[in-house]
C-alpha cells in the first residue's frame, strides 16, 4: 500500500548548547513539560495530521530515544504497514558513512521511503516545540501545485537578520533566500519544515550526492539548486506556537510558558490536538498535609511534603519537608531533601539535592536568561550552593560551591 505523505524527522543533533542535559541523550529525547520529550511534538503532530509513517533519523546517543519510541504505541504508530521507525546510519557493500548533512541523512534512507511509494515527503526537525497541522500545510502545497514548500514564521523586522529568510511574492512563491542577512528583504523566517514532491526530492538528493563539493545540507545545497532550476517553491505562513529549545534558557522559558497557556500560546491541554507521550507508569501523586503547591504541574509518582511554586515537576520527584521549589523545571526521579532551596533552574533526571542545599537564585531583572542547571544524575551535597548561572555536570560535595 502506498502512503500519500511520509514524514522524516531529523533527530541527529547532539544539541550541544544544552550542555549537561544532552551529554548522554539526543536532543529530541530531552524531557519537557512534565511528562513529554521534545520528539513528542513532531510525532504527535504527525499522528494528529493523519500521517502514519514516520522515520526518525538519528545517530547520536540513540539508546534513550530508541527505548522511548519503542514500538510507537503511545503515539498510535504501532503499525504493520508504516508506523514509526528509528533509522540509524548503516554500512553498505560499497562503503559506509555517518550522516554527513541533513540531505545526506535522507539520501541514505531513500530505500526506506521507496518502500512506501509516497507522493509527498515532509521533513521535520526533532528539536522544536510546535503544534502544527501538517495536513493544512500539505493542502497548501497541493493547492499551489508546488514542487517544494517551506513553513515560515513572520518575525519582527528588526529581528529578521538573525534568521534564514524566504523572499516570496504575495502568492507565496519564493524568489530568493537570505541567510542571516544584514539587510533583510523579508521577515519570513524558515522553520526548517519542508514538503517535497517525492520524485523531486529523490532526483535532487541523487544529484546532490553525486556532487563531491556539496555539503549535503538542505539549506545550503538542495534548496538553492531547486531555486536555480526554477522549481515551484512556496512559503507557507504558520501562525501558531513555535520554539526552538536549543539553549538552556529557551528550554526553561518554554517550560514556564506551559504554566501559562492563556498568554504563552502553548497549550498542552487541548483535547483536539493531544500531545502524546510514553507514560512513566508510576503511582498517583501524594500531597501531604504539610505541602504547599501553587501554580504548578506535577506528574505521577511525585511526593510532596514541602513547597512548590510556579514549577514543573516530572514523574517521581520527591520534595521533602521544608524544601522550597520555585520557578524550577525538575526532571524525573529527582530527590530534593529537607530544607533545600531550588530556584529558577533546571534539574536533570535522577539528580539529588542534599539537605539545606541551594540551587539557583532569583535573577536580577534583565538577567532572566540566567538559569542554573544541574545535570542528570548529579548529586549536590548537603548545604552546597549552586549559583544562578552555574552548569553542574559533576557531583558537588557537602557544603561545596559552584
Amino acid at each position, binding site marked *: 500500500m502506498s502512503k500519500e505523505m511520509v514524514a522524516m524527522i531529523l533527530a541527529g543533533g547532539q544539541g550541544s548548547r544544552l550542555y549537561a542535559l544532552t551529554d548522554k541523550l539526543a536532543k529530541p529525547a530531552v524531557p519537557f513539560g512534565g511528562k513529554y520529550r521534545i520528539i513528542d511534538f513532531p510525532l504527535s503532530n504527525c499522528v494528529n495530521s493523519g500521517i502514519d509513517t514516520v522515520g526518525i533519523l538519528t545517530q547520536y546517543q540513540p539508546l534513550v530515544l530508541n527505548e522511548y519510541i519503542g514500538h510507537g504505541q503511545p503515539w498510535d504508530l504501532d503499525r504493520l504497514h508504516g508506523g514509526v521507525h528509528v533509522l540509524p546510519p548503516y554500512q553498505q557493500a560499497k562503503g559506509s558513512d555517518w550522516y554527513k548533512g541533513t540531505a545526506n541523512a535522507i539520501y541514505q534512507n531513500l530505500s526506506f521511503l521507496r518502500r512506501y511509494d509516497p507522493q509527498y515527503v515532509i521533513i521535520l526537525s526533532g528539536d522544536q516545540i510546535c503544534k502544527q497541522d501538517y495536513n493544512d500545510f500539505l493542502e497548501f502545497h497541493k493547492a499551489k501545485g508546488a514542487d517544494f514548500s517551506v513553513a515560515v514564521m513572520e518575525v519582527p523586522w528588526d529581528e529578521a537578520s538573525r534568521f534564514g529568510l524566504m523572499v516570496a511574492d504575495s502568492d507565496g512563491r519564493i524568489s530568493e533566500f537570505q541567510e542571516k542577512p544584514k539587510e533583510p528583504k523579508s521577515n519570513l523566517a524558515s522553520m526548517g519544515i519542508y514538503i517535497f514532491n517525492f520524485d523531486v526530492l529523490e532526483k535532487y538528493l541523487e544529484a546532490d550526492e553525486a556532487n563531491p563539493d556539496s555539503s549535503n545540507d538542505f539549506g545550503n545545497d538542495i534548496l538553492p539548486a531547486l531555486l536555480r532550476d526554477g522549481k515551484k517553491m512556496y512559503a507557507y505562513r504558520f501562525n501558531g506556537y513555535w520554539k526552538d529549545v536549543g539553549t538552556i534558557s529557551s528550554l526553561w522559558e518554554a517550560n514556564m510558558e506551559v504554566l501559562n497557556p492563556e498568554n504563552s500560546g502553548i497549550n498542552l491541554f487541548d483535547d483536539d490536538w493531544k500531545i502524546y507521550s510514553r507514560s512513566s*507508569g508510576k503511582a498517583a501523586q501524594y500531597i501531604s498535609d504539610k505541602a504547599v503547591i501553587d501554580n504548578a504541574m506535577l506528574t505521577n509518582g511525585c*511526593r510532596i511534603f514541602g513547597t512548590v511554586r510556579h514549577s514543573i515537576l516530572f514523574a517521581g520527584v520527591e520534595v521533602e519537608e521544608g524544601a522550597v521549589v520555585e520557578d524550577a523545571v525538575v526532571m524525573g526521579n529527582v530527590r530534593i531533601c529537607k530544607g533545600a532551596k531550588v530556584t529558577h533552574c533546571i534539574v536533570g533526571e535522577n539528580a539529588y539535592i542534599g539537605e539545606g542545599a541551594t540551587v539557583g537564585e532569583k535573577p536580577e531583572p534583565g538577567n532572566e536568561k540566567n538559569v542554573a542547571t544541574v545535570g542528570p544524575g548529579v548529586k549536590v551535597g548537603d548545604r552546597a550552593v549552586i549559583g544562578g548561572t552555574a552548569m553542574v555536570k559533576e557531583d558537588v560535595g557537602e557544603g561545596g560551591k559552584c
Partner: protein
Amino acid sequence: MLTNKHDALAIIFANSYDNEVPSLVNERLMASIPFAGRYRLVDFTLSSLVNCGIDNVSIIVKKNYRSLMRHLGSGRPWDLVRKNGGLNIVPPYAEKGIKVYNGRVEAVASILEFLKGCKEQYVFMTDSNIACMFDFADMIRAHQESGADVTIAYKNEAIPYSFMNMQLTQTTDLYYTLDLDGNRVVSINTNSKEYGPQNLSMNLYLTEREKLISQIEKAYAQGHVFYERDVLAPMIGTEKICGYEFKGYSARISDMVSYFDENMKLLDPENLNALFDGSDVYTTVRDDNPARYCSGSKVSNSLVADGCVIEGEVDNCVLFRGVHVGRGTKLKNCVVMQDTVIAGNCDIEYTIMDKEVNIASGKSIKGEKTFPVFVPAYKQIL
C-alpha cells in the same frame, strides 16, 4: 523451559463478591473497580503474577465485563501479550457449553479443555476483591515444602462487617475461615459469625493442574457448585490442605464502606508504601497531562492522579485521573473517580463520586464517615 519461570498458570474470577458493592458494579465488575487513584483492583493481582514470572492468566467473567475488556485490551500494559499463554478472557457463550456460571466449579469446568492443553504444573485460582502485592513464588515454595494437595492463602483479620451481616439469600458470596493445626487446615468454616481476628481465606488457591482437572470433572459431574464447600471441605480428612498466611498489606473490598475506607487508608504514606511494597504495579495508560495545581488552589493530604486540574481546595481525598475541581470548591474526605468534573463553589464531604459525574457550581453534598454518599457514574447534578 518452554513454560514460564514458575511453571504455574492463574485463573482469576472477575465477578467475585459483586453483590456486596452493587453501586460500584452497576456498569462494571469487581475486577475493574477503580482503586488507589489510577488502578483497577485486578491490576494488583495481574502485576503480582507478572512480577513472579507467571504469564499464563485466564480471567473468567460473567457479566458487565466490557469495562474490564477495555481495560485489559491485549494485555500489553502487563506485558502479557504472548503467542502461547498470555492473557485469556473467558466470557459466557463464547463456546457451546459456556453459560453464565454460578459457582467456581462451573466456572472452571468451562475452561477444562483449555486447562488440559496447558503444560504448567501448578494452577492458582483467585478472586479479585483484594488489592495486594502477593508473592506467588513464595506460595509455590511453601506448597512444595509442605507437600500439600491444595494450599489456601489466608489473612489473619476480623471478618468484615458486611460479611457478618450478609443475607442468607446471597448464596454466591460465601466466605470462609480456616481452622489450622500448624499450617494444616483441619476445617473450613462457611460464613462464620465469630468476632475478632480469624484465619480469613483470601479465596486464593494453589494446586496442581492435573489434580484440579480431576477435582472439577468429578464435582461438575455430580452437579456441585462451590469449590470450597463441595470440593475442598470433603477432602480434609483424606488429603492434605494447607494454609499460607499472607502477612503483607492488603485492601479487601467487602462493601461500600470498606471501599471508602480502603481508599482513605492510603492517605497515610506508610500504608501507601506498604501496598506497593516497592514493586511495579501496571495499569492501562491514558494520555493524561500532568496534574495542574492552579494559582489559589490548596491541596492537603491527598492522592492526585495525572490529568487532574485543581482550582479549589482538596483535603483528605483520593482523586483519580482527569478530575476537575473548580475554583472556590471545597472537597473533603472524598473519593472521586476518573473524569468527574466538579464546578466552582461546591462543598462536598464524605462522598464517593463514580466516574464522569458532573456537578454544577454551588452544590453541597455531605455524607458521614460510616455512610459515604455515593454518586453514580455519569450522573449530572445540575
